[in-house]
């Protein structure tokens, strides 16, 4: 493997890691938001009783 191949490989790896980091971070944020909305709804139903 020459220097060019190593660099190519590093750039492809970086692009794939960046893609998954963005997607999974967003999914985690959505999960957190989902939980907080669920908690709000539960609190509301407790207060209504």
């Amino acid at each position: 493997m020459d220097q060019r191949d190593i660099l190519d490989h590093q750039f492809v790896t970086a692009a794939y890691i960046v893609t998954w980091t963005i997607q999974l971070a967003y999914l985690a944020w959505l999960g957190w938001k989902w939980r907080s909305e669920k908690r709000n709804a539960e609190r509301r139903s407790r207060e209504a009783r």
Partner: protein
Amino acid sequence: MKKAALTLFPLITILLMIWGFYQAIYVAPDDALQGYVFRIIYYHVPSASVAFAFFAVSLLGSIGYLAFRRNHPTRAQVADAWALAGAEVGVIFCTVVLTTGPLWGRRAWGIWWTWDARLTTTLVLWLIYVSYLLLRRFAAGPQMQTLAAVLGIFGALDVPIVYMSNRWWRTQHPAPVFGGDADSGMKDPTMVHALLWNMLAWFCWGLLVLFLRYQVERRHQQYAALEAEEALTGAD
């Protein structure tokens, strides 16, 4: 039935993502000119396609909100939730496009960025939808959804310009993979298959995230409506 579909779809999506990755890294050959770094395309192009599709969802949602807001408030809220979900998930995919693109460009062109028509119009598209999300986050009052819908419609006008930019103008960005001249696009069928598998996988992933975002927004709308109702009855 619904529960089975909700379990099965994420599972199929994960399998497609693994298959797409395998196709992109192990099956597709190196590009004759660009070599190994060409494989960035298998994540870059599908992300752009999904972003465009979801900005179209946002456009339809925005039009729906404006059409229904006076006579069908529930339908208007549903349309608004789709508009927001489409814009937000579209921005996420567009962010992927704007980060993987420069990574490819640095190896292929020797530069991270150039102000050519395709790159510039994509950046403008991203900025418009980021401003849409900021408007929704920080503006208050009954006009916020209407203003956001109008901005969403204007933002979507940039999508065909981005799509056509490397057909209308001479750009440093490569020629279109699909729908370009006879000389453009991929020649090797294994490359085309790898790209199509990744497109399918990212569309499924995108649909999953879009649906989840829509559900979160609907919950939020229902909670906000209850709070408003309670505030009114409390005021009485």
